[in-house]
């Protein structure tokens, strides 16, 4: 497909060549693959590290689901694998709580923050904006290596004699502040806090970079209003991260002080298990929750906004239609960003905080449903009268929409303070957030990987395997998290090691078995993806055309083989918005095509460009 833009690039090649020398240099293995400063390589590092963490956390969920479905059966292989933590072939309560805690921590922070935002912000911001790299490639590299270090510390904590942290991913004090309160609250929590602190440094380095790149490094013609929605989403995500993560860092440092240096920020009037009155006076455990959720709630938008951006972009590209209501999509992200900072205490309706405060937080929480609704309806309208190409990426994007609807709607119940009195900390909550931010964000990630894999590795992933992966995961996700709503309505509290201590929670044995079987199938179905991913890196079908999805955005004008600096010649210039699909009868129109040069773009439609005017009339 010889387009006008390519032609332009070629003629300008020698003129602009002196602007850019990087790709002439030979790079060593270390600078290319390990301490790389190329945003595309860093994106791959984030992605692959994220995949490894996702496998670990996914297998953890299989383990604790086995415990919940078969609390009375023994599985000798567990003892063989985990020794004292699974004596007699049964997962111990301590181990169970470690698994649950680590599952949450790893997925929320390492996989869905670093793995999702780190991968796609890095890959797409420079490519879609027409920049040769990030504003600070060195900081970008540091961002990955702080993430790596943070993961390393977390991994070490698994092998402590007292085990990893076991007080939940929210690390509430006093349970996590008092070493005698649980086995995992000994060294495990210190490791957890140090790991998360390192992680926050990584997020901040990355976020600063994303923001300055978006503001400063857009190519000529790439006004804010022409940016793809992916970049808008990454931009706001980075802003949220920059404003909220430092608060968690503060909370974590205060907790480290409480644990190790005898301060009383979160502790007061406590009697140890040995009957000893602790000297701490005047602290308040609820204060930590305020600090934690001031990050914790925006954190769910840090997770979901990039997925939304990716999904918007893929839905439009594969519907062959402009995204419906581009500005509304941007403003709704802005609205979510702002309101997202004002809803944190809806996690705390039952902590005894002032009921009037509960009213304010309910109002803001339900208010956030409005921009969410706008997004959903705009996605649906984007599909309407499109020409929908069902690539694996598109299917995952559609799955995301379904999951976001389902999980978003249950959020309306939970955001209402009065209804939260019963539903708080039950399986209803577990179902809600797994669907709306867990699985949905995963679907966004999968969509992104299937869509941009050719950009990363110049090869295609296997489509058929992608389809199998999609249908198993889509149905599996609902099989696992659908029935959990019923458990929650039945009052079953979350974070229970077994359900038979209470009459009201012991009635769902068969449901728990179904959930566990669903979870095992869903987790192992991910190995189809992993096999597909790694196999395709080396053995996938080679990419021969630059723009396989006939997309408008800039990343597909870069060279097929990823090179340092992205464009061998001059940086492309932008003349139009990112979503001109179907305009004036043209099936698509890359952003680089100047106004008046539309006819130079070869279209795949049966109608030739000369008859496009007629097509337009017919429409």
């Amino acid at each position, binding site marked *: 497909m010889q387009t006008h833009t390519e032609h332009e690039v070629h003629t300008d090649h020698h003129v602009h060549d002196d602007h850019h020398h990087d790709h002439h240099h030979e790079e060593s293995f270390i600078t290319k693959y390990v301490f790389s400063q190329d945003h595309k390589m860093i994106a791959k590092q984030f992605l692959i590290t994220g995949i490894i963490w996702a496998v670990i956390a996914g297998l953890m969920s299989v383990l604790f689901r086995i415990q919940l479905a078969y609390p009375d059966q023994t599985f*000798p*292989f567990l003892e063989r694998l985990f020794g004292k933590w699974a004596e007699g072939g049964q997962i111990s*309560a301590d181990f169970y709580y470690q698994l649950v805690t680590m599952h949450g921590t790893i997925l929320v922070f390492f996989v869905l923050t670093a793995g999702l935002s780190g991968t796609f912000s890095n890959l797409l911001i420079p490519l879609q904006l027409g920049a040769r790299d990030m504003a600070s490639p060195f900081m970008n590299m540091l961002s990955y290596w702080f993430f790596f270090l943070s993961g390393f510390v977390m991994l070490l904590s698994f092998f402590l004699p007292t085990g990893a942290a076991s*007080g939940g991913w929210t690390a*509430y004090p*006093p*349970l996590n502040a*008092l070493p005698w*309160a649980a086995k995992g609250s000994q060294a495990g929590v210190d490791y957890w806090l140090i790991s998360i602190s390192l992680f926050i440094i990584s997020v901040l380095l990355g976020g600063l970079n994303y923001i300055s790149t978006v503001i400063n490094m857009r190519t000529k013609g790439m006004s804010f209003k022409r940016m793809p929605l992916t970049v808008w989403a990454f931009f706001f995500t980075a802003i949220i991260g920059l404003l909220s993560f430092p608060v968690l860092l503060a909370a974590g440092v205060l907790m480290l002080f409480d644990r190790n240096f005898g301060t009383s920020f979160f*502790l007061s009037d406590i009697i140890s*298990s040995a009957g*000893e*009155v602790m000297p701490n006076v005047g602290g308040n*455990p609820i204060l930590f929750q305020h600090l934690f959720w001031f990050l914790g709630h925006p954190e769910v938008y840090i997770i979901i906004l990039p997925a939304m951006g990716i999904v918007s972009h893929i839905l439009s590209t594969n*519907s062959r*239609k*402009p995204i*419906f*209501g581009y500005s509304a999509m941007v403003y709704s992200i802005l609205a979510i960003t702002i309101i997202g900072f004002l809803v944190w205490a809806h996690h705390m309706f*039952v*902590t*005894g905080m002032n009921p009037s405060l509960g*009213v304010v937080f*309910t*109002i803001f929480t*339900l*208010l956030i449903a*409005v921009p969410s609704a706008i997004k959903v309806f705009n996605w*649906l*309208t984007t*599909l*309407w*009268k*499109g*020409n929908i190409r*069902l690539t694996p990426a598109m*299917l995952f994007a559609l799955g995301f929409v*379904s999951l976001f*609807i389902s999980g978003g709607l249950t959020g309306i119940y939970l955001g*209402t*303070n*009065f209804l939260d*009195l*019963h539903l*708080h900390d039950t399986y209803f909550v577990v179902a809600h957030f797994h669907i709306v931010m867990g699985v949905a964000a995963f679907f966004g990630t999968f969509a992104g990987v299937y869509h941009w894999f050719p950009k990363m590795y110049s090869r295609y992933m*296997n*489509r*058929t395997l992608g*389809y199998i992966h999609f249908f198993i995961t889509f*149905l599996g996700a*609902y099989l696992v998290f659908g029935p959990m709503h019923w458990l929650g*309505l*039945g009052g079953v509290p979350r974070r*229970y090691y077994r359900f038979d201590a209470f*009459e009201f929670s012991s009635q*769902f044995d068969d449901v728990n078995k179904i959930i566990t079987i669903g979870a095992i199938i869903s987790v192992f179905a991910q190995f*189809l993806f992993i096999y597909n991913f790694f196999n395709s890196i080396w053995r996938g*079908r080679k990419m021969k055309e630059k723009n396989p999805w006939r997309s408008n955005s800039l990343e597909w004008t870069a060279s097929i083989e990823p090179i340092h600096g992205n464009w061998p010649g001059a940086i492309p210039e932008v003349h139009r918005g990112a979503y001109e699909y179907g305009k*004036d009868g043209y099936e698509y129109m890359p952003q680089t095509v100047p106004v008046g040069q539309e006819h130079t773009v070869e279209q795949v439609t*049966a109608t030739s460009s000369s008859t496009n005017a007629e097509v337009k009339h017919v429409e």
Partner: protein
Amino acid sequence: MSFNNFLIVLFVIATIVIVMAQIAKLGDMITNLKKDPEKAEEESSTNLALLFIVSGLLFVGLITWSYFNQQPRFLPEASSELGRDWDWLFYIVFSPPIVLIFFITHALLFWFVYKYSYKKGRVGFYFPESIKLEMIWTVVPAVVMIALVGLGLGKWIKATSPPSEDAMHIRITGMQFKWMINYAGDDGEFGDRDIRKWGKEFGIQNLLGLDPTDAEGYDDIYPDEIVVPVNQEIAFDINALDVLHDFYLPNFRIKMDAVPGVPTRIKIKPDVTTAQMREKLGDPDFEYEIACAELCGTGHWNMKKVLRVVSQEEYDEWLASQATAKAIYYQPLLDKLEKEKNLAMQGADSEETVLN
């Protein structure tokens, strides 16, 4: 499952993955062999759209079916006005619009994908914006949300307002991994507690920090179960000694955290006795259960108490049969205090002698 079986299972899973991968490879190869990639895209999109609709019907159908299948196992109708308000707000107010939106949006999603699946040569309809449409789905959800907030607000205020004057207070203290229950006794006054002073003084002997000099506590009772008369407003004054707990009464649709150092409170007014509930459910073993709903450590899943709702006569009878705290808790503390005082006096005496 033994270790060998586990290895076999892993092997089987790996085999399935590899077999699927090979089939998939073949599938892609066949598609790529087709001469007209656009036509191939059209075919595969049509088939996948059908499959997508089927999977949509499957999951929406299964969820609907499983709701009706599981519904009988949910908690029975709440046993207090607050609880019934909850049921009303959840089932009657919130669920109809939410379920409706769920079905409509999903119907549109699956229908559009099928209806507009890829056709060779078709150009997507250029429809980038419609202020009118967008206004509709900004304003309508906003109005619905405001209505929902409004309807929930009154109930929340009612649930969280301070208990009335004639409410019966029960002190609940959470600790790993049990609940301590404290009634005020005949005088209606609780004995003072001060962990910093009296807890320190007596250590493990006085975890609650009871003040042995406060006679108001002598008639308090510390029973194993919570027994309350029906139709009496109960205020639970909640506290914790070590970590966070959460006092959860599923049958009354309410819970509240127990926080060390920060007192919290909820109120309930049960209007169905345990005996009535047993009869209603046909379950002679039914009890109102109290669970912990905030992760508090290894035994979190097993912090159980029973709340028994009885008639006023039964309650009076039960209350009369309970031993007061004087003998159980206070006397040992008083004895110890006395002993220490004597020791101190002796010490002072001997000191005086030395000085002289």
